[in-house]
């Protein structure tokens, strides 16, 4: 029997992290304005105008002119829930057994991604409901799903990297001796780092200055800051993936070829399907 997963805390901690992180991302202009204010007057005014329009709870500011107590609380809760989550995350029944303490970061971010999938499904169904039953479609639902989904896509890739489930062809890889496999792994990892550094090198200024710092909006009626947040996120996640590739290389260095071999099918998944069919299958 694989370990049970999905207990209450495993839902609550990632969910809290997700809520706090979304809050901080949404209120990011406040932090920009107070902590790293733009030198140019016009840019300051631009970002401030956006901030005033999108500030949900207008409490009096405590630091500087924009950050209020809720923003600060959310900011503090991010590292708290992150550490709590990383310390408590446990292997789920469908996951690879091959992990160390450092892998738990990717695993916890995976849990957060799962919460994002639930949220995005709910937002989408809510939109279908209000559009066709109450007949008052929202402005925000479609773009919120888009925004959430794009983060899901990126973070799911990090998780897949940690689980070593990215699609690859192992025809030759499985046939060569372990030392050659190590050489192959080193080449792959170096090339992944090359790709990550080329991408970051190619766009860091454009993304972090033109998009994030100037807080570029999507340009629609609801106008979420999708370019301002997603484009930096692309670079951040690609970097994390490259780091995870190095971690994988170190973790797998001393493994046997037998343990390394990627199974064609997921045994745990088949077990789960068997369980769902009940006892009568076992007896046949």
């Amino acid at each position, binding site marked *: 029997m694989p370990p*049970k*997963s*999905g207990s209450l805390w495993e839902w609550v901690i990632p969910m809290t992290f997700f809520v706090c992180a979304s809050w901080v991302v949404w209120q990011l202009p406040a932090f920009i304005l107070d902590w790293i204010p733009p030198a140019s007057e016009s840019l300051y005014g631009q970002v401030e105008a956006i901030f005033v329009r999108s500030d949900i709870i207008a409490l009096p500011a405590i630091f500087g002119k924009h950050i209020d107590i809720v923003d600060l609380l959310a900011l503090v809760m991010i590292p708290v829930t992150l550490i709590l989550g990383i310390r408590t995350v446990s292997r789920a*029944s*469908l*996951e690879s057994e091959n992990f160390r303490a450092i892998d738990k970061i990717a695993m916890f971010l995976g849990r957060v*991604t799962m919460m994002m*999938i*639930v949220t995005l499904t709910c937002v*989408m*169904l809510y939109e*279908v*409901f*209000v559009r*066709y039953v*109450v*007949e*008052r479609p929202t402005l925000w639902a479609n773009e919120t*799903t*888009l925004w959430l*989904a794009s983060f*899901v*896509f*990126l*973070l*799911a*890739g990090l998780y*897949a*990297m940690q*689980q070593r*489930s*990215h*699609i690859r*062809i192992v*025809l030759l*890889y499985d046939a060569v001796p372990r030392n050659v*496999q190590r050489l*192959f792994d080193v080449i*792959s990892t170096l090339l*992944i780092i090359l*790709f990550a550094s*080329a*991408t970051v*090198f*190619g*766009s860091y*200024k*454009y993304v972090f200055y033109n998009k994030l710092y100037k807080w570029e909006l999507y340009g629609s009626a609801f106008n979420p800051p*999708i370019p301002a947040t*997603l484009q930096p996120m*692309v*670079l951040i996640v690609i970097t994390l993936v490259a780091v995870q590739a190095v971690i994988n290389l170190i973790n797998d260095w001393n493994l046997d070829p037998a343990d390394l071999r990627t199974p*064609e*099918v997921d*045994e745990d*998944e*088949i077990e789960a399907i*068997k369980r769902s*069919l009940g006892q009568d*299958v076992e007896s046949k």
Partner: protein
Amino acid sequence: MDIGTISLIVMLGLIALLAIGMPLGFASAVLAVAVLVMKFEPALLTNPMSFGDGMLTGRPGTGALNLMQNKIYGLLTDYVLISIPLFIFMASLLERSGVAKTMYDSLSMWLNRTRGGIAIVTSIMAVIMAAMSGIIGGEVVLLGLIALPQMLRLGYNQNLAIGTICASGSLGTMIPPSIVLIIYGLITETSIKALFTASFVPGFMLASFIIIYIIIRTQIRPQDAPLPDPVPGDPVGREKAGLFFAFLNVLVIAAAVVLCARAGFIEFSGQNAANEGEPYSLASLNAFFKLAGLAAVALGVALFVFGKERSARGWKLGKGLVPPIIVIGVVFGSIYGGISGITAAAGMGALAVFLIAVLLHYTTEEWVALARSRAARIVMIASVVLVIAIVLPMIVIPNSTLKSEMRFMIIAIAIFASILRIEAMRELLWDALLRTMKSTGTIIWVTIGAATLAGAYTVAGGPNYIANLIIGAELPTMGIILAMMLILLFMGAFMDWVGIVLLIIPVFLPIVRRLPIDEIGFIGQLEPKNVGIWVGVVFCMNMQVSFLSPPFGPAAFYLKSVAPAHISLTDIFKGFLPFIGIQIMALSVLLIWPSIVEVLL
């Protein structure tokens, strides 16, 4: 560097990187960097010390290399892409929902006295499941667990049993909704709805080929499919047929009532009057009365022609078919009924499957017993929730128009929370989410890598160069297409479909688009605007073969993991041979008569 050299290097580089076991997505992404370097700053290759002088490295943080990030951003903000995790989510819920088991029991009851009945049931069931889910894997496992033991116990020919399960189980990506078609539509900018519509006929054609093959084979060789001993008390012959029609009649009543209620709601809530676009289908006042009349007639037939008792018995025997019909109705109703796009349809499907999984978790009797034993508590909680739902919005947002939305949210959260009190449902949801995330990550990151490579290669002028090369060679049109099919079949034997659609289709499609259209096929004439759709369906059919073809046919490995130990992989692949023949036959029909994809368009 000229584009010919770059193309050659990309091809060789891809083969080399894949051979050393590098993940496909990252291999393509690295090659995208390589293409950009070769195109814009080849000096970097001969003289690395020149870093910082050229087009790419001269302006760090911006410039031509920004193409990578930009392509990824563009891909991620494509709204259709969201349907992929949702369809995977729906399929993962479906695999564990218990829908398959009840459906199988119901179907096999109707056909168990027919020669080859269990094999036919397996195919029909696979078709129904294919219409609910867009991926393969889970389906083969389910059929292998449910149908294989039964067929082997009855003494069915082992090859027939294995081939039927895997060939039918692979139909998931041929019959819409299909993830293969979604990704294809995404990267070629073809309408996914049109692709779905076009693939119906070829998909059902392949399914019927499989069923016809089973019927012919078992008629010629009855020893391949012995009949089970009749169970006393089961209906036989005409009685069974009567019961089946009684059951269908009940379905007609239910469907007419539901559609009638919908039409009534739309008409009387004033949506028809307010609607300025296309009129809603089957939602006018006229349709409302017609549907009501149909329901009444069918009810009369149920009561007086079939009789109450026979209708009830037919319903009891056939009700396992109802959940799949509902799911299919929700998904295709959403897509074609004008309610929502592909993406929202996937979300609705996932919700429908989840609710059905909850309902099927207990039998009807168990639900009744549960409700009885906790009646007081249920009534109490329900009334508290209702009171909160009515009062809370009035206090919190007294002046807002969003009261009914808030009420809906409160009630929805209450229902969801009470469902999650069942431990098995919590686990189901958790596992399904985990699987969704993992599969999404693998599929999307191949797409990300391929999008960067395709972007870089297009900037370098690659696809045009290849198309000119092929067209310039003046080969016969059908010869080129046949060569493409061979390449696809060959690649399919070694590579995952995601890789093929992302790396090969962007090269193939421009070539096909530039071929003289009147030379494609032998019967019928394809319309120029439908070429992209035809190629998509043909590609999908090719991938059917790839699921079965040795040495890596994924269906074989899925079946192996649940088959009895004495069945080896070689046995499984041997069982596939006639079915691969059938798939190639269906593929040839698509090539000879291309306008078959236009039948429903």
